[in-house]
């Protein structure tokens, strides 16, 4: 079946057999490889996207069920020439090491700051409690989001 959705402001479509996740479609059919899959279970947040205004794990969204949805991926938040404040802050604060978790964190953090302009540190941490990072120990991630909060 054909799935039609809006991704990063553009109308896109893909052919699916049925079982494929939105993550799969984004990466394999739509060429948007920024979103990562690392656990297949929604336990790591690497696949986070914004779907109809909420941050969800795209590995847990059946692509067919995303027909008609509005999706924002990390690629839609900013480009190298025009970085989102969260992207800018992650780079500046050293919150990126291997970077595999980074797109998921950036999406979750950007969404947090769009919906809560002045989150306290504990609110930031709870909002990101679904995003695993194995490299940074989260210190620089927290510092980056606080810096982005100030910049926004």
């Amino acid at each position, binding site marked *: 079946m054909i799935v039609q959705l809006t991704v990063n402001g553009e109308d896109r479509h893909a052919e699916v057999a049925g*079982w494929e996740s939105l993550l799969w479609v984004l990466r394999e059919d739509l060429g948007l490889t920024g979103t990562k899959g690392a656990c297949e279970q*929604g*336990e790591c947040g690497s696949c986070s996207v914004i779907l109809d205004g909420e941050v*969800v*794990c795209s590995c*847990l*969204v*059946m692509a067919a069920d995303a027909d008609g949805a509005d999706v924002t991926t990390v690629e839609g938040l900013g480009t190298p020439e025009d970085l989102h404040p969260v992207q800018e802050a992650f780079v500046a604060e050293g919150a990126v090491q291997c970077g595999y978790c980074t797109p998921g964190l950036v999406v*979750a953090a950007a969404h947090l700051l769009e919906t809560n302009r002045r989150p306290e540190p504990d609110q930031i941490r709870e909002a990101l409690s*679904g995003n695993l990072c194995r490299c940074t120990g989260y210190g620089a991630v927290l510092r980056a989001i606080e810096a982005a909060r100030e910049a926004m």
Partner: protein
Amino acid sequence: MEYVRPKALGEALDALAAFDDPTPLAGGTDLMVEVNLSHRRPDVVVSLRALDELRRWDDTWIGAGVTFARLEGADDPALAQLARTVGSPQIRAAATLGGNLGTASPAGDSLPFLAAADAHVVLQSTAGERRLRWDEFFVGPKQTVRRPDELIVGVELPSRPERQAFAKVGVRQAMVISVVSCCVLRDPSGVTRVALGSVGPTVLRATGAEEVASQAVRLTDTDLEEFQRRVSAEVRPITDHRSTAEYRRHAAGVVARRALERCLR
């Protein structure tokens, strides 16, 4: 794979009746794990995404389509508390009460509240409606009496007391599959209901412990100790890779007592 997205409840029930083995899909946070991890390939998916009727929520009714993110704002303290512990923010944005009921994991976070509240699960199909008490609905680990043509439409909640407490034990501070979970409801006359998860084939009520807690408005330390002892005696935990039966039994007593203490303050 056949995928249908009915726009109204009646359509959905018709769809479930039309196929042999239909898979209802709400948030997908359980189904897609099976698809991704266990490579389950459903033949027919009936999406509930468009069914606004399932999202109705008021003082006596929680629609099956209400997400845990919404439930974090519940007036019932125990419901708000348990909702905050489900999965992660990403999971809570998608996962629904109906899904939690349909999966019926013994560790299901909503189950202790529903059991303590004596909720009824309401199922609908083209053959009519069934209204089942929670312990008629959950019959074993990941086993319910839902027929393939039935849809969980919501839970009916009788009135609940103000004094409520929920607790969930896990090894880390987030994204926790519960080792033991507990919900206590206590009304002003002292009548107490205690339900525990992850310590039996399905959620259970510690009725012997409830007797002790319900006997008076003021409880002594001796009462609380007896309450704790009875909870530990009544649970039926197993040992698995997450924890031991011995620890679960001990922890069940401790968290139940502490939850009761919270209700006594």
